[in-house]
């Protein structure tokens, strides 16, 4: 029997390889789990199958026929339904319009509104949105309800033409009865021949719902096996790999005074308060899965979040400063390098020099707030040399530099501003190895000079190599803080998964 979808030798690179020779076969009517750490390549693989990204090489076949979609529309026409983690919904439309957006019932003159409501009603009842009216504007829905709408949308395609349903973290916002209902639906559909790819961090769900599962690590499929033969520990071991625990400097170090205190901080994104502190000369890691609230925590500490509650205090010799906005944060020595370099970091189309000095223009020391171009360029040149940024010079625009060199310049920006409390969100994501090591060296050097650093990273090796302590977040709550020497990678992963599994992890 030919497989529903057969993938052979799939490669995809962005700055670095993301998928390497991925091969996968999913048979008709099978539910196939896909698990892996953040950045393992799951999303890229899904995007390629659903037509959102082209592969660099490799081939796909759908029911034995060659399949190479050029757009999401082409994949839809081929019968690939997708419920995306980032919800492909439009806030200004009604629930019904959202559900049927890709398959509006037409009649001679435009949309058949009656049919829209009727079909939406059926799908809404199916996914457990009985209490909602199809005309409700989507903006009024909770996140869980929106996730169910996204599912209804994925299920809106005619059953006889849908061949593969891809679910990306479909239960991340759902309660367990809601998740159970979803699982019942996909089991029913698969019994009548639908194939499903089920991506989730909830390993217990994966093992109970799926027939087979694949583990993806660093873009390589490590294991494909029947779920009946596996436990969640097996999956965690495959996801983390063995070459861990390479501590580059394992000797215990002494810290200075506490530089940063975060007391009972909460925001709209993580309602349960989180407290932490960081000493001078210390690196505190923050681990957790995507969506665990790590970036949101850094943004709240920096004074950026909505409905922020709690206190963030910087302690300097003889004087405490309370941080209530990004400008007080920056002016009191705090630095934030956000996860999304393009939208929150660099100034596109501007010179390296502008990008480097923007946070510390006052420290260039021109009278009457004048900027002295020579001095600015000299300062920029010094930083370019210090961080070994590959570029033509301070007046080159930043756009054409590699991700690694842009990231180095963001580090340079805050060095120039003389920051000594660093909040770094995925500081080396999408960065080549050379730049990564250079950034690590610079961060260690800042630490040795008395800076306090908070680092969010999805890469556990990065955290275990750099950090003195690691705080693990799970599902927007602080789980546990581990000290250097106490942790191993499986322990951290287990803690990161803990609030998704309903299992309380023992203190490390």
């Amino acid at each position, binding site marked *: 029997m030919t497989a529903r979808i057969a993938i052979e030798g799939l490669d995809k690179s962005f700055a670095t390889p993301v998928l390497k020779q991925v091969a996968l076969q999913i048979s008709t009517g099978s539910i196939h789990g896909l698990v892996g750490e953040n950045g393992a390549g799951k999303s890229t693989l899904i995007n390629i199958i659903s037509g959102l990204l082209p592969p660099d090489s490799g081939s796909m076949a759908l029911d034995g026929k060659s399949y190479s979609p050029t757009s999401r529309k082409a994949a839809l026409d081929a019968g690939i339904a997708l419920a995306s983690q980032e919800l492909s919904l439009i806030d200004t439309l009604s629930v019904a319009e959202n559900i049927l957006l890709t398959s509006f019932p037409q009649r001679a003159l435009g949309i058949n509104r009656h049919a829209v409501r009727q079909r939406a009603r059926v799908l809404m009842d199916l996914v457990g949105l009985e209490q909602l009216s199809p005309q409700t504007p989507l903006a009024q829905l909770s996140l869980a309800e929106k996730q169910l709408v996204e599912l209804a949308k994925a299920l809106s395609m005619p059953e006889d033409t849908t061949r593969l349903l891809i679910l990306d973290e479909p239960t991340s916002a759902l309660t367990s009865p809601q998740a159970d209902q979803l699982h019942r639906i996909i089991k029913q559909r698969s019994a009548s021949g639908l194939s499903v790819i089920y991506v989730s961090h909830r390993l217990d769900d994966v093992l109970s719902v799926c027939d087979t599962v694949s583990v993806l690590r660093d873009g390589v499929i490590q294991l494909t096996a029947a779920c009946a033969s596996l436990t969640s520990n097996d999956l965690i071991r495959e996801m983390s790999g063995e070459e861990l625990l390479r501590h580059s400097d394992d000797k215990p170090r002494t810290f200075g005074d506490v530089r940063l205190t975060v007391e009972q901080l909460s925001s709209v994104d993580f309602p349960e308060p989180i407290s932490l502190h960081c000493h001078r000369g210390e690196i505190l890691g923050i681990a957790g899965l995507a969506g665990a609230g790590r970036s949101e925590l850094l943004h709240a500490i920096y004074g950026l979040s909505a409905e922020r509650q709690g206190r963030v205090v910087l302690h300097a010799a003889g004087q405490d400063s309370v941080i209530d906005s*990004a400008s007080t944060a920056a002016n009191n020595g705090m630095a934030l390098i956000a996860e999304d370099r393009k939208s929150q970091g660099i100034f596109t189309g501007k010179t390296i020099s502008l990008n480097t000095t923007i946070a510390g223009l006052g420290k260039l020391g021109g009278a009457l707030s004048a900027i002295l171009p020579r001095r600015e360029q000299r300062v920029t040149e010094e930083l370019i040399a210090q961080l070994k940024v590959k570029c033509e010079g301070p007046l080159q625009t930043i756009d054409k530099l590699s991700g690694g060199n842009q990231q180095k310049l963001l580090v340079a920006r805050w060095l120039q501003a003389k920051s000594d409390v660093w909040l770094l969100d995925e500081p080396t994501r999408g960065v080549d190895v050379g730049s990564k090591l250079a950034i690590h060296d610079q961060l260690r050097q800042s630490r040795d000079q008395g800076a306090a650093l908070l680092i969010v990273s999805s890469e556990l090796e990065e955290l275990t190599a750099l950090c003195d302590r690691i705080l693990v977040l799970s599902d927007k709550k602080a789980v546990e803080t581990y000290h250097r020497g106490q942790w191993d990678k499986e322990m951290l992963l287990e803690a990161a998964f803990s609030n998704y599994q309903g299992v309380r992890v023992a203190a490390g």
Partner: protein
Amino acid sequence: MLRKLNLLFEELFIFIALLLLVAFFGVMAENFFTAGTLMAILTQLPALTVVTIGMTLVLISGGIDLSVGSVVALSGGVIGIAFTVFELPLIIAAALGILAGGCAGLVNGVLGSYFRLPVFIVTLGMLEAGRGLAYMVTDSQTVYIGASIQALSLPISGIGLSPSFIMSLTLVVLAQYALTRTIFGRYLIAIGTNEQAAKISGIRTEPYLTWVLVISGLLAGLGGLMNAAYLGASDPNAAIGLELSAIAAAVIGGTSLMGGRGSIVGAFIGVLIISVLQNGLAQLGVSEPVKRLITGLVIILAVLLDRWRSR
């Protein structure tokens, strides 16, 4: 060194376009190279120039100021009434007019940045409200001011340039300096390029976005003074559509409507191009509709060239 040349090239490019335009009219229109043409251009220029300076700064910060034309009329009205009805000294009247422009800008700025309303809409509202106020202040009548104010737009003997013109040229230089060599200008560019990154870099965006609209309002107020000087009167119907000429001049001069990029010197050359075009076409005997058609095409062409250049 090459890079520096490249930066100069930005302005050089449109300057050459201006020279070509002048050469074109010089050949085509018999009387183009005369003192009369030069005078016509020089006396009309200052008001549009100062308004365009403000507009360019606002555009660079990522905003837009649609109210400038109305504010010019409002300021002119305030000056005329203060001078003729309240018989205040001209200098006080002028200051009140400029201040009225500043107030309009302050309202724009506060609503735009602290109340987070879209600047486009706020200044569109001010375009209507400002015009209404101008009619109210002047009782919808043109107020004759007379020779005392006209001195501003007449050439100073010995120099050959009017005080208005000298003032506007000085402001071009000052604003270009502020934009490229001060923290204020640098922050405007940063905010206009990427507001979120600017915030994370520690810039408090609200005061800067307010100030830039206040400056635009003050400059529109000054434009009102210059316009009244040129007319010798304050006309509540003055400067209708001036905001579009100012935007056009800024865009021809290489300013991006998306924010973050622009040059005051470039915008000034843009003003010159528009004036030369208007006067040159008039001398060729081109009708008003065709003049507008050609001006529109030139604006579109400028943006196309700019797009092509920045590739």
